[in-house]
C-alpha cells in the first residue's frame, strides 16, 4: 500500500476513536431534545465531571496500591457513572423541571447558567490547572511498511471502540426492549398523549437525563484515559462538538447522533491531517452552519411536519 493510503487509514482510525466519544456525548443531547425539545447546554459539563471523577478515583486507587487494571477501570467506571448520573438527575430536577411549560428560551438560559455554575464549581473545588494521569493502557499494533508510513492502532483505541460499541448496544436494547425504553419512545412521539395514558412522564424525563449523563460519564472516562489530562474547561468544547454531532445527524434521532459523531470525528481528523491542525474546529463548526443552512433536520432526522 502506498504512503498516502496508509496515512489516510491512520487518520480514519484516529477520527473514529474521537468520533465515537462525540457520539456518546451527543446521545445525551439528542435524547433530551427528542423528549422535551430542549437543548441541555449543561451536558458538556457532565462529561467534564465524569472525567474528573475518573481521575480522582484512579489516582486514589493507584495511591492505595491497587494494581489490577481491569478492576481499577471497573471501579472508576461505576463510580463516575453513578456520580455523573446523580448530577444529571439533579440538574433536571432543580434547573429544568420547575421551568417546564414556560417559554422554551427560559430553560435554555437556565441550562447555560447551570453550565457556568458547574464549571466554576469544579474550578473552585479542584483548581483550574490541568490534572494528569499516567498512561493506563499502553501498547498496540502497528502495520504498514516502516520505510513509508507505519499505521498504529493502540490498545487504548481498541478499548474506546469496544466500550462505545457495547454501550450503544446496551442503549439500543434498553430503548427497544424495556418497558421504560418503550415509554421513552412514546414520550418522544407525543408526550401529551403519553401522559394522558397514565405514564408518569416526569419519571421518563428524569430517566432520560440519567442515561444521557451516564453515557457522558463513560465518554469522560474513555477520553481521560486517552488524553491523560483534563481541566475544568474541557466540557465546553466537548459539549459544543457533541451538540454539532447531534444536529448533524438529526437532533432527536439516536442513530443520527452516532452517525453525526463519527462523521464529525473523521472530518476533524482528516482536516488536522491535511491542513494546519488549528483548522479542525473551523471545519467542524462550518459543517454545523452548512447543515443548518441546507438540511436543518439533519442527516437522519425527519423534516418537521407542520401539525394541523
Amino acid at each position, binding site marked *: 500500500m502506498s504512503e498516502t493510503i496508509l496515512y489516510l487509514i491512520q487518520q480514519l482510525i484516529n477520527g473514529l476513536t474521537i468520533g465515537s466519544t462525540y457520539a456518546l456525548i451527543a446521545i445525551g443531547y439528542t435524547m433530551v431534545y427528542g423528549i422535551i425539545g430542549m437543548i441541555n447546554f449543561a451536558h458538556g459539563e457532565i462529561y467534564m465531571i465524569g472525567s474528573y471523577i475518573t481521575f480522582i478515583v484512579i489516582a486514589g486507587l493507584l495511591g492505595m496500591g491497587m494494581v489490577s487494571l481491569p478492576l481499577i477501570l471497573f471501579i472508576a467506571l461505576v463510580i463516575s457513572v453513578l456520580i455523573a448520573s446523580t448530577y444529571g438527575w439533579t440538574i433536571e430536577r432543580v434547573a429544568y423541571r420547575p421551568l417546564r411549560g414556560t417559554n422554551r428560551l427560559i430553560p435554555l438560559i437556565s441550562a447555560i447558567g447551570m453550565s457556568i455554575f458547574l464549571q466554576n464549581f469544579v474550578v473552585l473545588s479542584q483548581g483550574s490547572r490541568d490534572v494528569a494521569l499516567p498512561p493506563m493502557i499502553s501498547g498496540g499494533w502497528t502495520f504498514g511498511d516502516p520505510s513509508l508510513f507505519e499505521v498504529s492502532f493502540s490498545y487504548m483505541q481498541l478499548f474506546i471502540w469496544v466500550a462505545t460499541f457495547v454501550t450503544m448496544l446496551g442503549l439500543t436494547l434498553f430503548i427497544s426492549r*424495556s*418497558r*421504560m425504553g*418503550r*415509554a421513552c*419512545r*412514546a414520550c418522544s*412521539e*407525543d408526550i401529551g*398523549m*403519553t*401522559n*394522558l*395514558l*397514565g*405514564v*408518569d412522564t416526569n419519571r421518563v424525563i428524569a430517566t432520560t437525563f440519567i442515561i444521557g449523563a451516564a453515557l457522558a460519564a463513560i465518554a469522560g472516562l474513555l477520553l481521560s484515559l486517552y488524553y491523560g489530562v483534563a481541566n475544568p474547561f474541557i466540557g465546553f468544547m466537548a459539549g459544543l462538538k457533541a451538540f454539532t454531532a447531534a444536529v448533524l445527524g438529526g437532533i432527536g434521532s439516536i442513530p443520527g447522533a452516532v452517525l453525526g459523531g463519527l462523521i464529525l470525528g473523521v472530518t476533524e481528523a482528516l482536516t488536522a491531517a491535511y491542513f494546519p491542525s488549528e483548522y479542525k474546529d473551523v471545519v467542524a463548526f462550518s459543517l454545523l452552519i452548512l447543515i443548518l443552512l441546507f438540511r436543518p433536520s439533519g442527516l437522519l432526522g425527519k423534516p418537521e411536519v407542520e401539525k*394541523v
Partner: protein
Amino acid sequence: MSQLLLDVNGLTMQFGGLVAVNKVNLTVKNRQIVSVIGPNGAGKTTVFNCLSGFYIPTAGSVMFKGKEIAGMKDFQISRQGLVRTFQHVRLFSNMTVIENMLVAQHRHLNTGLLAGLFKTPSYRRLEQEAMDRAIFWLKEVDLLDSANRESGNLSYGQQRRLEIARCMVTQPELLMLDEPAAGLNPNETKELDELIIKLRDEHEISILLIEHDMGLVMGISDHIYVIAQGTPLADGNADDIKNNPDVIKAYLGES
C-alpha cells in the same frame, strides 16, 4: 337501576370575552351511549376539553362517580377512569400496534427498577397480564393480525380502532370519543357502530360521543344533547331530536 356516572352542571367556558360553552348540563348513566351534536363551532370539543382536563372550566361542576373532577389535571382524570380520543388520530406512529397497547398499561406495570432488572415473578406476571389484555382488545377490534406492524402504516379505519383499543386497556368506565367516524368510509363506520354497541353491552362501559355522522348518532345513542353556539338547545332520544323544530332550525337555518 342505573346511576349517574357523569353529572355535568352549568358548565361554562369563557375565553376572554368569548363564551364558548354556556351553562351546559349533561348526564351519562352507567352503560349508556350519549351523544353531543351540534353545528360546526358549537363548542362540542370545548365541552370535551373541559371534561378531560385540558381546560379548566370557568364555571360549573363536573362530577364523575360522585367526585368533582373540574380543575384536575388531564392525567389525573384519565386515572379516574375517564379517557378520551381526539378528532385527529394520536397514535405513536413509529411504534408497533402491540407497543402502543403496552405503553398505555405502563402505569399498571409500575414495579420498580430492580424488579424489572431481575424479572421477578411478580413483574413477569404483570407483564403477562398486560400482554393478555393487549391481545384481548386487539382481537375485539380485529387488529390482532397487525400486532407487529408499525401503527403509522395501518389504514385510517384501523388506526381509529386501535385508538379505541388503546383506551380500553387502561380499563376506563367512561370513554369519550371525539368524532370517531370522521374520515371513515360507510363500511368502516358500520364496524365502528357495532364496536361502540359492543363496548356498552358486553364490556359495560359508558360512551360519550361527539359525532357529525347523523346515521351513527341516531342509530346507537341512548340520549342525545344538541348544542348550538355554546348553548344547550335540546336533549332527548333520537326521535325527539329528529322532530325538534329548534334543532332543525339550527342545522338548516331559518326558512
